[in-house]
């Protein structure tokens, strides 16, 4: 018997992973949640049929969505994570002792529960005393917040389904308002490769540019995401993501990571020409 999980990346392309067994399947108020066990990628979390993370390659995503901003900001003490119920981003943040407060806003409490139960290696730091979990719509949460955070990490699902409100201009504008004067927002920015993803990527970039004076994009390679070529957004009120960064300061923290290093950080902002062009098209 062979069991395969298949995700359609476009109408004509799909990725299949051989599944050993299904560990969990359930339906929350917002979405269907599945956990599979696989030989190649370890455990896999799937929401509404879309692959969210695998144990084998989640480190790439979580390190890169977290450490870039942590390296750029000279003194981040209060960090907000929107989405990210699997706990991977929070896990990376807890590696910094000087962070005082980590707020996690996840719309779907069941994603957190399922992650704690079945994805121990990503969710293990959700009980850190600095972490507070809020189970509500990110757009609603951020609306009430003014001048509160140094860094906001938007660890969202795709621009359809429960996460669609997190790709809107009103959301990015509210994030701007919720940040301190030198705050940074990093967001999951979709992919430039396939047409549908690229359009979502352009829309997000356009909307972020409307709210932040500095809006850059960096790239990362995630084997299980469509095309493997993925982007994050770096939006900032004051700091450039590369110029003027005190790299030594970060190196002195002495963190041992699997993907991120400062040279890669600087290089990740160098983008292929076609991606530069897609971004330029929507910058006014």
């Amino acid at each position, binding site marked *: 018997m062979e069991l395969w999980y298949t995700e359609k990346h476009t109408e004509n392309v799909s990725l299949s992973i051989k599944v050993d067994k299904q560990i969990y399947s359930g339906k929350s108020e917002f979405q269907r949640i599945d956990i599979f066990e696989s030989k190649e990628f370890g455990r896999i979390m799937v929401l509404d049929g879309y692959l969210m993370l695998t144990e084998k390659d989640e480190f790439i995503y979580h390190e890169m969505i977290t450490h870039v901003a942590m390296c750029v900001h000279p003194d981040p003490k209060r960090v907000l994570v929107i989405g990210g119920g699997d706990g991977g981003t929070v896990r990376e943040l807890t590696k910094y002792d000087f962070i005082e407060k980590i707020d996690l806003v996840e719309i779907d409490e069941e994603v957190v529960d399922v992650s704690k139960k079945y994805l121990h290696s990503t969710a293990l730091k959700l009980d850190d005393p600095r972490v507070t979990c809020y189970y509500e719509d990110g757009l609603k949460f951020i609306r009430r917040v003014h001048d509160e955070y140094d860094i906001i990490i938007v660890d969202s699902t795709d621009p359809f389904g429960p996460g669609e*409100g997190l790709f*809107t201009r*009103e959301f990015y504008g509210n994030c701007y308002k919720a940040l301190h004067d030198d705050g940074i927002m990093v967001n999951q920015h979709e992919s430039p490769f396939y047409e549908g993803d690229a359009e979502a990527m352009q829309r997000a970039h356009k909307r972020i540019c409307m709210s932040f004076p500095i809006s850059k994009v960096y790239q990362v390679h995630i084997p299980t995401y469509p095309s493997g070529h993925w982007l994050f957004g770096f939006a900032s009120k004051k700091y450039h993501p590369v110029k003027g960064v005190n790299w030594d300061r970060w190196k002195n923290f002495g963190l041992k990571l699997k993907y991120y290093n400062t040279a890669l950080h600087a290089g990740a902002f160098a983008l292929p020409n076609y991606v530069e062009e897609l971004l330029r098209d929507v910058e006014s």
Partner: protein
Amino acid sequence: MEYYSQDRAPVLEALEKMKRARLVPFDVPGHKRGRGNPELTEFLGEQCLSVDVNSMKMLDNLCHPVSVIKDAERLAADAFGAAHAFFMVGGTTSAVQAMVMTACKQGDKIIIPRNVHRSAINAMILCGAVPVYVNPQMDSMLGISLGMSVADVEQAIKDNPDAKAVFVNNPTYYGICSDIKSIAKLAHDNGMLLLADEAHGSHLYFSDKLPVAAMHAGADMAALSMHKSGGSLTQSSILLIGDRVSEGYVHQIINLTQTTSASYLLLASLDVSRRNMALRGREMIDKIIDQVEYARDEINAIGDYYAYSRELINGDSIFDFDITKLSVYTRSIGLAGIEVYDLLRDEYDIQTEFGDIANLLAYVSVGDRLKDIERLVSALAEIRRNYRQTGRKMLKAEYINPQVVCGPQEAFYGEKESLPIDKTVGRVCSEFVMCYPPGIPILAPGERITEEILQYIRYAKKKGCSMTGPEDMDIKFLNVMK
């Protein structure tokens, strides 16, 4: 299963039966179940085209219903508590026209608030009825016209004992209701009919948390936009009548202007929506009320904006308020409603119903999701943060009492000339000028043009309101009576 029970849908069932019969169509429409127009079929779907059919024996005929349409109309009448219901395929405009033309002949008077939809005055152009306008009270801060005061209606009836009918908006676009029960009694005591424009009120029939529905308050005729709060397809409406008017005569009036090729897509949508409202209307409306109340609280918590509700009720010109309506006063952030409406669409990808010079109206219905409400509220918060203006001179809307010189028909068909709009002060307008939506005329045929009115038109144009009505689409010229 009993045939006359609300879980049935006779038109829908007949269409399904027709599909199973696999008839060979040698009748119109010529697309023949979509086969003759593959592009349209691909766009709308095969299901849709396969039931875009013509009247036939098993499907009845809207012009003269004897079977399934008649049964569906009877079920609708039962659901809404009326003596009879007519399915309308020309929008609520056609239902409003049927009401006015049923009640009035050439030269007959009708007592009517000035803030009616253009369809009511259009009907007067067609049949020659003459309006007796009742000044709808105005809320000077919100700049919206309200309901009619009962005393004003009483006075109008006293002054015009020969009038044939009283016309009431139930509610207005903004959700404001007059005391329709008392007005119905007044009309009946004086031998007049009570006609209700319920373009924004078809849901009132299915909840006890909302203002009274017209037929329940004693109205003789009511025009309902099922396609607004009822969930049916655009252009489909229902006309309800009571015992005081003749079903056969109303039918004749409707057939004067109604198509003889009524769309079965529209008819089926009315049938299904009636069933849905009858079976599940109460819970659907409860959900809408919850969402709108939530949105109102959140919008009011932003600051400056004012999302108004039942606190406006004053026992007369605001006798009741439809809490499913989400109207927001925006002038307090220094922006006209129409400016916020444009920003929402252009900058935030949110399309609302309309903006006037002081208010924004977002239409919330059974199809809305809480996450969309969050987007609307958040976008309004962002608009306030990014676009708020202070010290800007904003025109305060006031009720401009119309000077009616002659009836709409006389003015519309009379000898006229076209003048540059600035040269028209003092002349009698022979056409409509309005912002659409909401479609309430600023000028109606037969009314004198004043400087005050022109100032309002210029201001609304400048703010970006979509102006319609005149023969000259750019509204640089107006037709006036010679």
